[in-house]
């Protein structure tokens, strides 16, 4: 697999590209900080009153603030550009050029997203952590073990998110106008992953259902590991479920890919 050097260079090129758009990075960060501050203030207000019901007894306000800060960090770092990349490349016909590389197309897009993640870690995550620490105090993990398990779980979270994005992206091979499908998927993720509001604040029925869906294993699992709400043993069990989802979605993606390959239309030219 000496193709690895090519994929590695694609990662590097994406990091270099991100550097060319420094200004974008700063603007994006201002948005992130506003989002972060707003969420923290909402939680503070909610914990001040008694609107939260029994959910509030599960995690205290400090835990919830840490949860929110780390959740925004995860959102900033996780890059699943693959969905839009496929959509744009198909729409503009540039997919033809991607096919000219003796590489795996999804491998190319995966490398590019990894590159975006590396640059987001340096460019966005670090300044954001500093800002958040100044405003609300450093978001400490519950324990070193929790931190380590969090990182491992995040890797699997990202895989799940990426595979779902790639799948939605591939729909572009059948339907040239993809736009809204991606928005629906993103809305599902935002709500059901617990990235904004943890699912324990949701009705019992919805919580039962979402145990059978991949979404809560993307944000809520690693986040609750981080704040110590999930014991290390449960964390490992959760990561087992994450692995199962990665495998399932991976197989599904591979199947869609073989079907999509025969459907390729190249617009223009």
């Amino acid at each position: 697999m000496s193709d690895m050097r090519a994929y590695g260079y694609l990662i590097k090129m994406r990091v270099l590209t991100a550097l060319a758009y420094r200004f974008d990075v700063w603007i994006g960060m201002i948005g992130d900080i506003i989002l972060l501050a707003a969420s923290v203030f909402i939680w503070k207000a909610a914990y001040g009153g008694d609107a939260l019901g029994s959910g509030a007894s599960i995690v205290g306000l400090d835990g919830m603030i840490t949860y929110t800060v780390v959740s925004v960090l995860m959102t900033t770092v996780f890059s699943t550009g693959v969905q839009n990349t496929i959509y744009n490349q198909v729409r503009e016909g540039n997919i033809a050029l991607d096919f000219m590389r003796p590489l795996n197309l999804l491998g190319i897009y995966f490398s590019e997203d990894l590159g975006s993640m590396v640059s987001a870690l340096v460019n966005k995550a670090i300044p954001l952590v500093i800002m958040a620490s100044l405003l609300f105090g450093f978001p400490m993990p519950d324990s070193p073990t929790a931190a380590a398990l969090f990182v491992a779980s995040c890797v699997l979270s990202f895989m799940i998110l990426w595979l779902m994005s790639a799948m939605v992206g591939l729909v572009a091979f059948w339907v040239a106008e993809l736009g809204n499908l991606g928005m629906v998927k993103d809305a599902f993720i935002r709500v059901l992953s617990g990235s904004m509001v943890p699912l324990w604040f949701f009705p019992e029925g919805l919580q039962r259902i979402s145990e059978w869906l991949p979404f809560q294993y993307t944000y809520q699992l690693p986040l609750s590991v981080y704040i110590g709400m999930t014991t290390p043993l449960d964390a490992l069990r959760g990561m087992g479920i994450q692995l199962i989802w990665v495998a399932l979605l991976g197989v599904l993606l591979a199947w869609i890919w073989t079907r999509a390959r025969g459907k390729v239309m190249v617009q223009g030219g």
Partner: protein
Amino acid sequence: MAIIEVKDLVKEFVVVRKKTGLGNAIRSLVLPDKKIVRGVDGLSFNIEQGDIVGYIGPNGAGKSTTIKMLTGILYPTAGSIRVCGLSPHKERKAVVRQLGVVFGQRTQLYWDLRLGETFELLKRIYKIEDKRFKATLDMLNDVLRIQDFIDTPVRQLSLGQRMRGDLAASMIHDPTVLFLDEPTIGLDADAKHAIRGFIQTMNRERRMTVVLTTHDLDDVEQLCSRLLVVNHGRIVEDGPLDSIVGKLAPHRLLVIELSEDVQAPEHARAKIVRQDGLKVWYQFDKAAISASELIADLSGMLPIRDLSVQEPDIEDAIREVYRTTG
């Protein structure tokens, strides 16, 4: 064995006809009005190694569609393709390793990065050793003069520079076959000249096979040893440029300027097609009589001040092929 073998190739596209009006729009969501369009309709041809083949035809003839199938991007609806002995869509990676491809309307260069960065990526994709990579870059630089802008971000390059960059990128791994889909589109005379020179050099020095799609007949005239003319997804002419032009427009013109106003005589093997003041146009078939014979005959009968021989117009001949097959 021919380097490219195409047999009974067909590509069908399903197009959904959109109708106006809200009612029709809703109806077509449920029951789309589908129509099958044949972009390529039964192509067969072989291309030998070391040839420069001009693949020409009017807009929508199926040229780009053919190239997309030969390079493994599109799956054929029917028929078979062999490129370097392999099936492009079944063994895409192995085939594209041996191909260089330039689509004149697109670029494979990374827009936000310096030109050289794309070359570095290609070096790793094709696993080119340092020494060979440097030698190839030097060679490409000699012909395309890319050194001047190799450190410039691609988005700041002019169209001509970008095209030179794209050609260099397509050649960095020393491909066996080069596909060029309208490589001279939008370029000035100088840039076109450079690109033609480059194609000739690569072909001569590396025995590279070139398949060239273009609407610029100067490209064809200066580069191609053979022409494949397509229309409506089918081959309508195949052969060297002269023979296609000769077959369709066998006539040449002898234009004579007289020194005094006399009645120009008829000639058995040349026809007067026009007379205007002191100028006379004789049309003749080059198979029937040579220009020098005709001039010798006429100079005995006419007071000639000046003369010129006009070759048939390639543009006219090609337009005639498109018209008669259209």
